[in-house]
């Protein structure tokens, strides 16, 4: 299982790197879906099958489809790809990479002091749902309100 974890982690990192390096939006999106699916695999390995499936259904299956939809509507042709190439100059990468490197260094230096293994047991749908509709029912309500707000504002924004 840990092999599966490291494999999926490798795929996730590689495909994420591909996402931020791509010039073609559609390809980047495909890599992003791949990254999300490998994260879903990681979820499964880490004993959260429900989260894994939701990652695949909602994240990879619904949210990314929306992206694809919008890309279809934007009608980005070859010239945008050339433009992307032009924008991705080396100069633009230095400062962000420096910052990100510092950030990563900080994160790693904080996190690596934490050495404990993850519990191997699986937490299934039933446990999550019981908790979700028990003590966290308010969070469910809040989430639904958030979604409603998102729905309304998206409808309003996309209207002509």
């Amino acid at each position, binding site marked *: 299982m840990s092999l599966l974890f490291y494999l999926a982690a490798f795929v996730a990192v590689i495909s994420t790197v591909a996402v931020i390096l791509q010039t*073609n939006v*559609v*390809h980047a999106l*495909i890599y992003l*879906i791949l990254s999300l*699916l490998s994260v879903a695999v990681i979820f499964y390995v880490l004993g959260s*099958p*429900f989260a*894994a*499936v*939701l990652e*695949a*259904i909602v994240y*990879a*299956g*619904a949210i*990314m*489809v929306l992206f*694809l*939809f919008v*890309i*279809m509507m934007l009608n980005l042709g070859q010239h945008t790809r050339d433009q992307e190439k032009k924008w991705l100059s080396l100069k633009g990468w230095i400062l962000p990479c420096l910052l990100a490197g510092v950030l990563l260094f900080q994160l790693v230096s904080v996190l690596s002091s934490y050495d404990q293994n993850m519990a191997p047991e*699986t937490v*299934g*749908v039933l446990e999550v749902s019981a908790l979700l509709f028990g003590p966290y029912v308010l969070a469910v309500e809040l989430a639904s309100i958030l979604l409603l707000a998102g729905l309304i504002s998206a409808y309003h924004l996309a209207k002509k």
Partner: protein
Amino acid sequence: MNWEVGSGLNIGVILLTVIIVAAMLIWVERRLLSLWQERLGPNRVGPFGLLQVVADMIKIFTKEDWVPPFADKFSFVLAPAIIMVAILLSFAVVPFAPGVGVIDSNIGVLFVLAMASIGAYSVMLAGLSSDNKYALLGSLRAAAQMISYEVFMGVSLLGVVALSGSFNLREIVLAQADGWYVIPQFIGFVIFLIAGIAESHRLPFDIPEAEQEICAGYHTEYSGMKFGMFFVGEYLGLVLISSLITVLFFGGWMGPEFLPPIIWFVIKSFIFIAFFILLRAAIPRPRYDQLMSYGWLFLLPLSLLNLLVTGAIILST
């Protein structure tokens, strides 16, 4: 994570069988259609024209694997693979019979839904990468249709899940020992049936590939083996939906003792396959907007109501 059912043999046999069955369905469909339309159908190659499928395969395999120069090659090649992979992966959780199946997963139903949603990318990428307006239109339609009907499909299944108390397809089958879920969950069954047809964009919901309007829709530019994958993928979807209906609503492999369980499963599934082919022969295609408004304005409220009533009854008993 239960691996006791799955073995190398199981995986291989099921994969092959499913693909072959799907391929054979091409012949079955043509023969059945001609039967209902009072004509002969393919009957020249082999006995009853059975070898027609083999001939078609040879033709498809040997055709030139051509990618149009204006297409986006990466996604163009990826698209047909996605639908095959997604649907074949879905079969992994289907319990055909005791001991016949790949994974006995606790999240089987959800896994099927996840794969269905991944399958939507196939048509979208195909249409987008073809750089062809018919293909783009077809893929837009397909994407909207599939995303919409995924919702009702998922919600209609939840009644069954609530009754059986599990997402595990095998346990769902076992829970139907006392009675098939088609009786308490008839509304759920009907919605799942309709959503399943739309999901696999079979006739009459084949709006993404409506020939009269937009050529062949999203696979207009495809030919050779890549077209074959779309083609077989459609029949794979047909088989998948039929077997899911059998598992979820009609007691799966269970039946009287005189036949082995796998045979019961095949019989039940085939009835639905035949039903789908009959639908193709009988019902005309609706308009695109009719399809969408039918789904959102009728099926969604209905499925939610069904879920609500089911939940209320379960809680009260």
